[in-house]
């Protein structure tokens, strides 16, 4: 539906046929974009036009489109998930852009996140880190009564703040070291703050950090870019906690 509010955008999009193919930026002009559309609905509109013209659509990752599954990514004008604070790409709306804007759209880039096609990347490295310790080793059926242990609301709330991480990888993508410290610290913090996480506290932090290093993620040099772009507002105080956990596990 055309409306006077609708705008024309100049898109520069990363196109890459497969993991091993060479990629390049391609320009597209897209007309009649509704400001009420989400960013990914704008991409849908581009794809419908490309298919109609006989071109391949732009492949990008997305799923829930509610900002919670962590599947969507995209570097939008050089910033993961675009210009809005604490907003995933799927929750970014086109009213944040203006008529005639140039929008540069690239995949998240980091050595541990190879591009699979166009804007789709492989983030299984994050799962591999989780496999090294991002859990409490309690088997099904082996749980005590839920109310047996009281947990201070303050700790529980802090744990919840950390647990909000959606695993999108924007912290890695924005970091000049491609560090996954914010991601790792979120899980380490959540479980270190809760009584259930105490038994494996030391092994968890040592194993997760070791795996992170092995997979080619860098270290943290306190630039705070991760905190600035995290769509869930995960704070770098978690990285401070991770460092304390790591120190005490390594030293004592």
């Amino acid at each position: 539906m055309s409306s006077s509010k609708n705008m024309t955008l100049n898109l520069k999009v990363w196109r890459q046929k497969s993991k091993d193919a060479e990629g390049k930026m391609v320009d597209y002009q897209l007309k009649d974009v509704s400001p009420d559309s989400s960013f990914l609905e704008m991409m849908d509109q581009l794809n419908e036009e490309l298919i109609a013209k006989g071109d391949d659509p732009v492949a990008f990752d997305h799923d829930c489109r509610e900002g919670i599954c962590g599947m969507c990514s995209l570097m939008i004008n050089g910033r993961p998930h675009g210009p809005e604070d604490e907003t995933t790409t799927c929750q970014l709306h086109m009213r944040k852009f203006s008529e005639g804007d140039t929008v540069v759209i690239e995949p998240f880039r980091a050595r541990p996140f190879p591009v699979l096609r166009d804007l789709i990347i492989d983030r299984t490295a994050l799962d591999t880190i989780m496999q090294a310790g991002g859990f409490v080793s309690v088997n099904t059926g082996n749980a005590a009564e839920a109310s047996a242990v009281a947990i201070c609301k303050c700790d529980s709330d802090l744990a919840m703040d950390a647990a909000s991480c959606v695993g999108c990888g924007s912290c890695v993508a924005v970091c000049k070291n491609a560090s996954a410290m914010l991601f790792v610290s979120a899980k380490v913090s959540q479980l270190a703050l809760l009584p259930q996480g105490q038994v494996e506290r030391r092994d968890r932090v040592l194993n997760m950090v070791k795996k992170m290093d092995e997979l080619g993620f860098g270290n943290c040099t306190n630039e705070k870019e991760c905190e600035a772009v995290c769509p869930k507002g995960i704070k770098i105080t978690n990285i401070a906690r991770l460092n304390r956990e790591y120190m005490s596990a390594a030293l004592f």
Partner: protein
Amino acid sequence: MTTSKKLDAKIPSGPIQEMWDKHRFEMKLVNPANKRKYSAIVVGTGLAGGSAAASLAELGYRVEAFCIQDSARRAHSIAAQGGINAAKNYPNDGDSVWRLFYDTVKGGDYRSREANVYRLAQVSNSIIDQCVAQGIPFGRDYSGMLDNRSFGGAQVSRTFYARGQTGQQLLLGAYSAMMKEVGKDKIKLHVRKEMVDLVIINGKARGIIARDLVTGKITRHMADAVILATGGYGNAYYLSTNAMSSNGSAVYRAYKKGAFFANPCFTQIHPTCIPRHGESQSKLTLMSESLRNDGRVWVPKKTNDKRHPSQIPEEERDYYLERIYPSFGNLVPRDVASRNAKNQCDEDKGVGETGLAVNLDFRDAIKRDGLETVKAKYGNLFDMYERITDEDPYQVPMRIYPAIHYTMGGLWVDYNLMSTVEGLFILGEANFSDHGANRLGASALMQGLADGYFVIPYTLGNYFASNKFEAITTDDEAFVEAEKISNQLTDKLLAIKGKLTVDHFHKRLGEVMWEYVGMARNEAGLKKALKEIPKIREEFWQNVRIPGSGEELNIELEKACRVADFLELGELMARDALERVESCGGHFRDESQTDENEALRDDKKFAHVAAWEYKGEGKKPTKHLEELKFEYVPLSQRSYK
């Protein structure tokens, strides 16, 4: 009415309170040392699939798990906001296993199986224990104890929550349990791999054919049992609150291989979704039902009243849910709230640009409890609403409208969660058993985890111990044939090279489904849908355009395979809706209502499960009936007044 011979629900005998314990004792066990000899394939890594894969691996079975996303942490269970029910009775307000059972059967409008629902209520408390032990940060009060909130369809507070992200936290709990087992090589995890067919050998489900979504390669996978936990089929409507990749293909293809499809017309419309903005809308976003705890639903009393809500004085507002249902008020079940919103809009009292919305107002809650309290409870939901609509719900009432959200129908299962195909088990939203014709809020998470953590680990063991499994290989004829058919399907789709996109057809299907198989249905409309859907399907197979090849990451091909199935499943839904000439829960037939426009059941004719058997392409499926007996919750007209 008699139950079809093909539908033995295998409900244990004896009083309902003792059935599960008795059954657990009577089921055969697999010796710990022998468990590693048995293998299971789990398709889907949401709450049901993730919890099943982890629990089975912990027991020692060899597990292969599949998901279509890039990680097992992304399944759409993650989007559930409000909470998970359990009969803990921590608030001391009169809850019990019996009351949760009773509420769920009544809320489902007497179309669920009592024995399954009782077991669900029974294991609900263990789920909370397990989740707390995994380190899930449930909401707590200042004493450090677990907090509860209330939800639609219940008069007690039994809902546990983790802010507005309960589904996320529970899923990450199941995911972490899975990762623990993947790290130990007890689960072989396949990401970005989609099941395209079920393989049956000598009458037993023994494997699947999968398509690697990155390379396009078709692969064969064998096991001693197959578990589908692939969620619902709400995306048949194109616009729904489901994730973009949520689809009905796994269950539909199992249906084509002999699993009966039960009550496909039972779909749930969620009353509190953000209204659509225009043509480019790709999906709908739900606002948690928990908002109805504090938000008051209203429309202007005058028709076509276009004034700003703040300019409409109190006496000119109609808080219609509180007026019509004084005892449940804004907390009536979902189907009742949805239909009433539609009724108001049909009377031209709807608000917003399209007139297809009602107000959900927090003014009084903010006045009563203070801004900070409301923010603490619903902050993230309010933020989400503002991001999408550009309006501040602390200042202006939210606008909401119903949308397709959940499908109570699904593959038929017996008490052991086994389908009509031996060795094929169905968990979570993908099966039909626990929610009848309407699911209560905060019960989907409960059911997914009940099936995965506390039911399948027992019933699958019994299946293994009671059967003999001949040695097979993936070179078996059934695998070769299924792979051939899968390849032919993608080749056929790619060869069409038509003019219209997959989304074009999906949208057209969605329009027909919403119009005629949506919130209110009638004979003429359903007959129209049964004419229209095959037409769209025919055109799809002649004129769809899918660029690229089958040997690469091809997003249009992925979608096309799923839409091709929706184009058949939609017809089955309409057929089932047409033949169920009664209203119950989410299935509302215009012809069957009380004088007060409430759903009117016909228990004499329809107190049954309608399970459909596939009979081949172009042939009418056969309907089998399972009679539903209500021995513990007496049949009565639901009333929330």
